[in-house]
């Protein structure tokens, strides 16, 4: 019987850049993004898929990147927080986070932004309840979510 493969070359589009990479078969997508690609804006806050700090977009959907193996993302289009303000100009949502003081330590922020960006893409004018529902998979320990919710609602229609 053939030895099982321990690594594989994957091809992904990350923030608009096409990347081919030989990754260990067991490497989590989040570790691939952080350690192999050096995109350290995507964070890790737990080891159980609860906290959402690692949220990225995979083919346009908000996904917790600690819940996927890198090899499962083969062929996918991935967007991380670094891709939001690609030209250095903050998105309306990023600006709104600043204006509403929606972040303190900033550790959950990339995941929050990715979840909220996905929400605004499918629902440009979310209600407060819509926002709370959309970010319920993202834990913040600093803000009590008050200003995060206001920031997302306040972005309505501009993202």
């Amino acid at each position: 019987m053939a030895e099982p493969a321990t690594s594989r070359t994957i091809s992904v589009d990350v923030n608009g850049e096409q990347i081919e990479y030989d990754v260990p078969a067991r490497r989590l997508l989040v570790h691939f993004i952080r350690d192999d690609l050096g995109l350290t804006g995507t964070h890790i806050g737990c080891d159980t898929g609860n906290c959402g700090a690692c949220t990225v977009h995979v083919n346009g959907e908000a996904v917790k990147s600690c819940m996927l193996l890198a090899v499962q993302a083969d062929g996918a289009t991935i967007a991380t927080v670094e891709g939001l303000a690609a030209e250095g100009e903050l998105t309306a949502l990023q600006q709104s986070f600043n204006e509403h003081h929606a972040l303190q330590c900033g550790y959950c922020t990339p995941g929050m932004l990715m979840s909220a960006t996905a929400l605004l893409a499918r629902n440009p004018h979310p209600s407060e309840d819509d926002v709370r529902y959309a970010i319920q998979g993202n834990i913040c320990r600093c803000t009590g979510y008050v200003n995060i919710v206001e920031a997302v609602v306040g972005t309505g229609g501009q993202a």
Partner: protein
Amino acid sequence: MTTTVTEPAKTLEKGFVGQSIPRKEDRRLVQGQGTFFDDVRRHGMGYVHFVRSPYAHAKIISIDVSKALELDGVYGTITGDEVAIHTDPFFEMSVEPGGNIKDYALAVGRVRHMGEPVAAVAAATRELARDAADLIEVEYDELPVLVDAAESLRNEVILHDEAGSNVVWSGVFDWGDVDTALAEADHVVKIDKLHFHRFSSTPLECAGALVEYDKGTSEWTLHCNHQMPGVGAIWMAPALRTGIDKLRFVTQDIGGGFGNKICLHPQYVVLCLMARKLGRPVQWTEWRTDQHTANAHGNERWFLDVEVGVMADGTMTGFKVKALDDCGAFPRYEPLGCIIWAQVTPGLYGWRNIRVDFTQVCTNKSPVSPNRGYSRMQHLWLTERIIDIVAKELDLDPVDIRKRNYVQAEQMPYETPNGCVYDSGDYSAALDMVLELIDYGSIEARREEAASRGKLFGLGIGSTLDSGTNNFGQSTLLNPDLQFSGNNEAASVKLDIFGEVVVTLGTVPQGQGHETTTAQVVADILGCSPDQVNVRRGHDTWFNSHAGFSGTYASQFAFTGLGAVKGAAELVRGEMIQLAAAVLQAPPEAIELSEGFARIKDGPPEAALPFMALGAIINANNAFLPPDFNPTLNHRYVCRPYFGMVDTEKKTGKLTLTYAMQIHAAVVEIDPETGEVDVVDYAAVDDCGVRINPQIVEGQVHGATAHAIGAALHEDFVYDEEGTLLTANFYDYHVPHAMDMPPLKTGAMESPSPVAPLGAKGMGEGGGGGIHCICSAIQDALRAAGGAIVYDSCNPAHRVWSMLQDPQATRANVSVASK
């Protein structure tokens, strides 16, 4: 969200202080450009994984690392035996018996809590390090387990043989004359037992560090997230048998701290040893499950045999209590928690007679560390429980009894029975404000409406204090031999060659917005925009802008941190004015600093020097300056507040400097079928004196409230009888999610502190007001269903359901003796 503000009072002229300017930190953080310790990479670094005990209490028979070392890509291992050879046990702050405890960086011969590190391995990748850790074979021999503080007190099983007792510290604090006060009272209310549970703030970023060792200089650099490096170094350097100058702490962005990143010295010492042994940088990122299991819980505390004296009119004369604190397996930052509570001895109340018989014990649970509201929160919860239980038993109104017993505005500054000085505030006015925010007048109508839907309805109040800036001299009330007192913090401000204003801080921010508030203060003093002020990110020992107690803890940035910034900025300002006066040939008093210029007040427009000119003259073009005129435009300032000495006989003194106050009110509905508690209305009023940045202050109130709501309803580190933690990660340890949080209304008052440099009081910890008011609200709601007494600080549905089933079980804990 509602914000109500009373008359603002500014100590500085109108300027940037007091404005909610958006934070400077945010631009990098919203783009994923923050630098957290786990983002730092070094060539050839090894990833460290700890092997941890699956048992709560066991002897270590053997550790075999040979299979791990055979694995390709493994750089090396370390065990407790090596730690015992190369390091000394950490310094203990207690007198005997706790002072005899030997606490090493790794378990030596015995494990005392589940998750305790027994060995560590470094390897080329994170995955490999875990594989290697699995190959390390540890043989244990289980020992009897202590998970209950009262059982621990019996000393039938001893955790630390060197100590010979499970007691870390015990002592009696006796102020006023509580026996007479109880004898003369019209009623004495007795409460047998109250329990403040174990939880922690669980910052979203776990602990960790990347440690480099420089063989040539014998110096370690720690790229880390320690929130109190000044004191961390005091622990680590002697253990490593080196000088404090050999430890360089570097922090950049930190993903929350809340006190939980103060006791990282054991793991950091292991990393230092491995970096030196392996001759390569080593990196450790704590796993979430490890953080919950074995890093930093908040202090668990029992309050036993409480007796409260109450006069017929509701005036309380004092109380006595036995406090039994459970600090887990090792004291670490303890026994400081045995005294920190005394900063708020009478809570918000005018009680003059108080006796606290305090004992702290070890158990086979995770060590504790400071946790938002550290030690005062537990005690303040007791004071609020006393108020509500007394009100209930004597049929007094919870609002009236508070107002009757609060320290009154006209008594400020008010000296407590143990010598602390409440600097300012109007507690009754704040209570009125919070009641207005939750529409107190409609409460009974809402109660009826909720009852019509089958819901139990309750209103609760939580009055709390956030005492700011530790006087470390209070440690001598626990151990007179300790050589600590006072406090300090440093900052430096300089004007650089092209006119750049550069500030370095000793503080170690973890989300509090220090870069922004510092820039606001400096901008006002130097006469420029906050955008022109570059506040360097984080802490670096090599900046030389730190002091012995540097860090962000104990709600002290507003006093010591900004006090240092203000001091340094004023020194630079003075020199800028002198220099401009010399250049512009004008008297110094004619010079003003404004809009990035030094100019002659009301002078011609050309009589103005941009900051760039001043910076360039001193730094690069100074030949014409006379030899007796030598400004540097570069100053370090240490803010060292005056405390005076504590009295170790009477156990009195100024244990802290400022007292921010918060009054919270919660309205809850309880489903009597399930015991589920729903917070339907919530308000918090904060008075922290001058608010440097109101938006940041409000953000701290939101965060502290969320922590408190989580703690009051869900968050609980639960152990089974074998000492296994049942809530070891975010699956079982439920922190509030966005859908769990009620709408929060906030209000603010400003009673400037007469002692603080900017009139601003530290306020980030918040004092657990949400725990107090939710316990209060649940008890109010249960009045209509048997009248149970809320006896525990955590009330998840199952506990509330039990109280509904058998209210008498809790009521049996309380009795009243009346004249």
